[in-house]
């Protein structure tokens, strides 16, 4: 019988375990994670959790009895330090000194927040947000904090900024680039979010050049910008992107790019005994083509994990899925379907100032993605269209009288 070791008990690791059983895999499954919790969902950490609308138990992805019933051995609070594949069977060693023998391995190690390379970054009150421990730390200081500075205008930073503003704090977002969420959305969507956050009372500073963080008695008190201005801060929340956790893959000599584990469309790494899925990987574009992408989303973690599990169970099925993502900022629901990378045309449907609109992305005349803000029907129509390889003519998409789903053509 085959024994599978899954390293990383997060969204993807959990899904690999569950999908292995769904595919009839009968061998031993051990899911080892360094966090002191079983697998849980991260998205609420920057949303409901900050307002007390979600407790730790409600974040659990499965109940403890589910794992027992499905013979999935979940080992929290243990980190895999070393892996050796030179013998007939693989051997992993953990930080408790335990040795785990296995036949096949899945790396679902996720990613870790990029650290701020700035003077003063080690001050107390400079926080990152990846796991429950970070969220608890943030929440501990939340009520007492009057001034919150968010460094980095990406999804997580903006979600925390929106939450802080809703709770009545003075909030400043510092973004180094000339627009928000620049890596993921078009200038139209970026500009909408800048204006929307400003309307809610958050100060958004683009092209911000931070010189250092200043503090008193070891605790942060402000962020100094070029020119000497200091923005007061009780909390500095840093959200400047994540780094894939490819340490073990590097150790094994697997192919990686900037830490991200390179996989093929079957979620296989360069060693056939090892699959990988989730935030930690660089994968072929899930809708085909030559491009390689990194996707940091629940959808990708789940769907790619399903592919990885099939591969482990001996079922060859390439990963094909329409990528999708959401971000909740105050009462603004952003939903993204498809990948806009490489677009050459955008069409704005609706009026951004009404806070309900969509941006459709085209490449060589074909629809490739959508950002919808409080425009669920547009999003659902495009997600379905992309899933069936269909498109929506750009010149008709602006007509608000006509639902997008009626405009879908081959």
């Amino acid at each position, binding site marked *: 019988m085959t024994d599978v070791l899954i390293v990383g008990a997060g969204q993807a690791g959990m899904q690999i375990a569950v999908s292995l059983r769904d595919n009839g895999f009968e061998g031993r499954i051990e899911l080892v994670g360094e966090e002191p919790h079983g697998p849980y969902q991260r998205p609420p950490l920057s949303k409901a959790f900050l307002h007390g609308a979600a407790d730790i138990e409600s974040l659990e992805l499965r109940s403890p009895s*589910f794992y027992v019933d499905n013979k999935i051995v979940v080992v929290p609070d243990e980190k895999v330090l070393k892996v050796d594949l030179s013998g007939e069977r693989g051997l992993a060693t953990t930080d408790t000194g335990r040795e785990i023998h296995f036949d096949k391995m899945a790396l679902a190690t996720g990613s870790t927040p990029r650290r701020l390379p700035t003077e003063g970054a080690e001050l107390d009150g400079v926080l990152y947000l990846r796991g429950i421990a970070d969220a608890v730390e943030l929440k501990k200081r939340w009520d007492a904090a009057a001034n919150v500075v968010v460094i980095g205008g990406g999804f997580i930073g903006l979600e925390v900024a929106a939450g802080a503003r809703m709770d009545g704090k003075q909030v400043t977002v510092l973004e180094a680039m000339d627009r928000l969420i620049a890596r993921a959305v078009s200038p139209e969507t970026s500009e909408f979010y800048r204006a929307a956050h400003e309307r809610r009372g958050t100060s958004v500073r683009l092209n911000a050049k931070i010189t250092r963080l200043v503090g008193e008695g070891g605790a942060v008190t402000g962020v100094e910008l070029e020119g000497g201005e200091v923005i007061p801060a009780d909390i500095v929340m840093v959200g400047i992107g994540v780094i894939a956790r490819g340490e073990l893959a590097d150790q094994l000599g697997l192919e990686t790019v900037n830490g991200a584990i390179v996989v093929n469309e079957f979620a296989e790494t360069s060693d056939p005994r090892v699959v990988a899925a989730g935030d930690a990987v660089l994968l072929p574009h899930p809708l085909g083509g030559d491009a390689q992408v990194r996707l940091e989303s629940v959808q990708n973690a*789940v769907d790619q994990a399903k592919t990885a599990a099939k591969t482990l169970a001996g079922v060859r099925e390439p990963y094909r899925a329409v990528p999708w993502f959401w971000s*909740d900022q105050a009462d603004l629901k952003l939903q993204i379907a498809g990948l806009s990378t490489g677009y050459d045309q955008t069409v704005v449907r609706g009026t951004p100032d009404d806070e309900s609109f969509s941006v459709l992305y085209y490449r060589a005349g074909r629809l490739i993605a959508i950002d919808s803000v409080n425009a669920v029907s547009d999003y659902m129509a495009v997600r379905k269209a992309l899933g069936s390889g269909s498109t929506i003519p750009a010149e008709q998409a602006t007509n608000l009288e006509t639902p997008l789903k009626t405009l879908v053509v081959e």
Partner: protein
Amino acid sequence: MPKVTYIQPDGVETTLDARDGDSVMETAVKNGVRGIVAECGGACACATCHVFVDDAFAAKVGEPGPLEDDMLDGAASDRQATSRLSCQIKMNDDLDGLIVRIAPEQV
């Protein structure tokens, strides 16, 4: 703890005790009830937790909110009169005995 019963498209039934305040979706997913995919984990962003509420409970459960309503329009299985996204139904003692049928297609 309020009870909730899930009926699969093939008729198989599962009855579970729900934690007060947990959604009908969470209760199902945490205990491995098949057919409720719930990819977004309850953010009302995926429409893969679609159920048909038993007529006897439809009034008590109530109507979907505007956002959920639009999501349901795009759900993989055609919506019916008592369609709801199960992540948006929070369990409480009032809903004890709730019966939902799981929509046949979710993705």
